[in-house]
């Protein structure tokens, strides 16, 4: 009971403090700042066209330049969706029920942001958030500083904007410098300002909070709750402003840098101490992918990466952040760029000179074709399919069942998404063209009563009979 009381008292103190901070800055005219800054946020809606439905998605975006460019969080778009499935992008201004067409520009691998451009008529009504960045160095919020941001109500409430206010509770490099506010401070993807109206950051996805769920009969159950509409975490302006120009050259997001070191796992301080690597951060390479630049450079599984271009990896908390740091070092570079890795191999330090390559074709870029009567989408297999299933990526025969329609003949026969179709009617599938040609013939043949697939699923293979009648 005492601990509860103490906690309550601490909370109370903080609130009082925030109130004092707020009153000292009372000279600023928040309503006026609000009215200007609300023009730098929008809601973006798009439709994902799947085999059987059109699924609308709404997310919040921030206007970043005078050309009407808008950035969305990486989670705004399903990474498995093919570019041609993403349709009808529309931009909605806060408080307006009618949207205007917009264009999708692609995703930047380094920041993860999706870029969208508003149409000509809308642009004039938008104010880029850079207008509030101020001159000189980006504003860095201090702990305990009061900050505010914007939230948007749902579409059926015309995306009405509302204000959220909080104070910075914590600043942490994970590895990007991130501010955690006491409460929700903006919708994910929308900017955060200080009381003078200067941009201090961009809200990201909210971290979860664990609550105890207590029923009258059962034991308390810890439950993680994540607020998807509002976030209390934001990247500070210095992590945002320098990268706003990273508009993809092509909607595919290419070129995409690739190293091919798979399953990087952080080395914690205890392990470093054990290996006599005092005050040294590192990441263990689980596997080196076949045919990758990492393999060509001579990186080996179980190597521990200690430094990049001679600079030791930073010591970050939580330990996992060092992995994100390394991944970002790859993503920020272009294919062809060279760098050196210092790795610990056994007891020896080895220098690896690597040249980044271009990412192999991704599943979302692979060719697909949907067969409605059969109820299956065949997709060309890609490098990652082979890696996931521990197959040689050089040999990519067969097709992947990308989608299986519920209740369809393929589903009834037991086909599942991600099954790898090796044979159709007893004959090996050579490639995607071969598979689709044969499936098309089966689909067109109204007389056909059934056909047989040989599919591999994980480590098992099964013969499936697909009954068409």
């Amino acid at each position: 009971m005492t601990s509860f009381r103490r906690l309550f008292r601490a909370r109370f103190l903080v609130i009082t403090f925030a109130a004092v901070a707020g009153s000292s800055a009372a000279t600023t005219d928040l309503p006026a700042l609000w009215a200007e800054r609300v023009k730098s946020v929008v809601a973006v809606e798009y439709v994902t066209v799947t085999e059987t439905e059109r699924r609308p998605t709404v997310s919040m975006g921030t206007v970043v330049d005078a050309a009407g460019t808008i950035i969305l969080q990486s989670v705004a778009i399903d990474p498995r969706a093919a570019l041609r499935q993403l349709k009808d992008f529309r931009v909605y201004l806060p408080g307006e029920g009618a949207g205007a067409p917009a264009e999708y520009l692609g995703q930047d691998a380094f920041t993860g942001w999706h870029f969208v451009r508003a149409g000509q008529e809308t642009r004039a009504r938008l104010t880029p958030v850079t207008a509030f960045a101020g001159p000189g160095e980006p504003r860095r919020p201090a702990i305990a500083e009061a900050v505010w941001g914007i939230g948007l109500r749902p579409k059926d409430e015309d995306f009405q904007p509302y204000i959220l206010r909080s104070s910075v509770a914590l600043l942490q490099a994970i590895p990007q410098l991130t501010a955690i506010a006491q409460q929700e401070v903006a919708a994910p993807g929308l900017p955060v300002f200080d009381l003078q109206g200067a941009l201090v950051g961009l809200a990201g996805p909210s971290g979860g909070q664990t609550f105890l769920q207590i029923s009258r009969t059962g034991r308390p159950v810890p439950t993680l709750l994540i607020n998807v509409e509002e976030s209390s975490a934001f990247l500070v302006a210095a992590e945002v402003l320098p990268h706003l120009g990273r508009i993809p050259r092509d909607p595919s997001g290419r070129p995409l840098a690739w190293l091919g070191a798979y399953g990087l796992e952080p080395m914690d301080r205890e392990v470093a101490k054990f290996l006599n690597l005092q005050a040294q951060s590192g990441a263990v390479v689980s596997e080196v992918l076949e045919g990758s630049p990492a393999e060509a450079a001579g990186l080996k599984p179980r190597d521990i990466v200690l430094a990049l271009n001679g600079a030791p990896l930073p010591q970050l908390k939580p330990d996992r952040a060092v992995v994100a740091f390394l991944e970002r070092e790859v993503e920020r570079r272009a294919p062809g760029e060279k760098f050196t890795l210092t790795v610990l191999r056994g007891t020896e330090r080895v220098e690896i000179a690597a040249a980044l390559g271009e990412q192999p074709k991704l599943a979302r870029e692979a060719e697909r074709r949907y067969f409605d009567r059969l109820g299956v989408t065949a997709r060309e297999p890609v490098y990652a399919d082979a890696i996931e299933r521990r197959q040689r990526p050089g040999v990519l025969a067969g097709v992947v069942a990308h989608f299986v329609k519920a209740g369809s003949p393929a589903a009834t026969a037991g086909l599942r998404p991600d099954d790898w179709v090796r044979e159709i009617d007893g004959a090996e599938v050579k490639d995607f063209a071969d598979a689709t040609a044969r499936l098309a013939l089966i689909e067109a043949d109204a007389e056909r009563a059934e056909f047989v697939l040989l599919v591999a699923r994980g480590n098992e293979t099964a013969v499936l009979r697909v009954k068409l009648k």
Partner: protein
Amino acid sequence: MSRGFNRLLESVVSINVRELAFESGARRYTSSLGSGVLMSEDGVVLTNAHVVSRRAVEINVTLSNLERVGARLVGWDHWTDLAVLRLDMDEVKRRGFKLAAARFGESEKLFPGQEVYAVGTPHGLTRTVTRGIVSNPNRYFEDNRGINGYETGMFNTWLQTDAAINPGNSGGPLVTSDGRVVGISSRGYLGANNLGFAIPATTARVVLESLVRDGAVVRSYVGIVPGALQDLENFYALALNTGVLVSSVDPGSPAAKAGLRPGDILLSIDGARVDGRFPEQLPPIQNLVASRPIGSELRLAVKRGAETREFTVVTERLESRVGEEWALEKWGLSVRRVSRTYARENQLEGTDGAVVIGVQPGFPGDVAGVARGDILLKVNQQAVGSLEVLKQAHAAYEAAPAPTLLETQRNRRVSLLILKP
């Protein structure tokens, strides 16, 4: 009832078992209860593999005269869910007990609708007799983890009965009205009414003999998972009742190495034609391979597409997925050796390592971040080629606690962790 039936009742026993359990990251004892049937006057008791396992540390058998006698495990075969115990005969003689043995009946002659009785100790109620009929004398089902994680059902069919079979009936006999044992009651469907299953006497007879003689049933393995053709004959252009479908080939197995592929049709084994049209026909085909000595060369005639080819495979010893288990108590970890089957199933690079099957909260393993399902690959940079390596490192830690380096794998991610005193 008949005199045979009364005699049978005297041969039914209940079994109390105390077992070691490793799952929790420590050594624990658990106790359980089942049934069994005396099959000889010299104290051989037949029961289920899931009643008495190899981890049993204390077995007590209650005879029909309500007296308790100690027993030991003689043999164990999870594939057919059978185990054999031997009573402590010195004790039996000393106390002057007379043992009544049951006799096998002919399970292959059972017909659907025939009256049968299950005798056992359901929920601890000793010498309970329930009555029913044979619902199906030849039921096929296999269960990849049916016997406490061990595989079962590939090498036998089952008798299905509506005689009530409840927990505790396991290992007790299913008998005809003349008291002949036609099956060993094994399991019932949970949440269903009167769907009970028993291992038929034809299987039990053979397994009992092997277990008494050798303590185990040694089987050959080639790595083919057979599938019933049902009515795929047309599709494969086969005459009816010819061949069996190769529905899967275990990676790295002798069959895979010889070049067999899923979708092939296996026509004959060493010239003996096989017929796997229906699932019930699969166990005899499995036994055709299993019954051969380990290291036998088998000629398999296989139809692939339009052509028929012959493959030669050399059999290996059949192994369970479940490897040897141990508890590393100071670390709060219980582990299971990576078996050949487990390594193949999980596409591991080799058979080095031990799978973590239990973690004690707050112990060094838990604190270091080891979780259930992780594979311990190395300890202090030494490969875990056997459980001995882990046991030695653990003993060293126990004697002089010092930071110990573990290399673990989770899915395909390799981590280095430190066990700290």
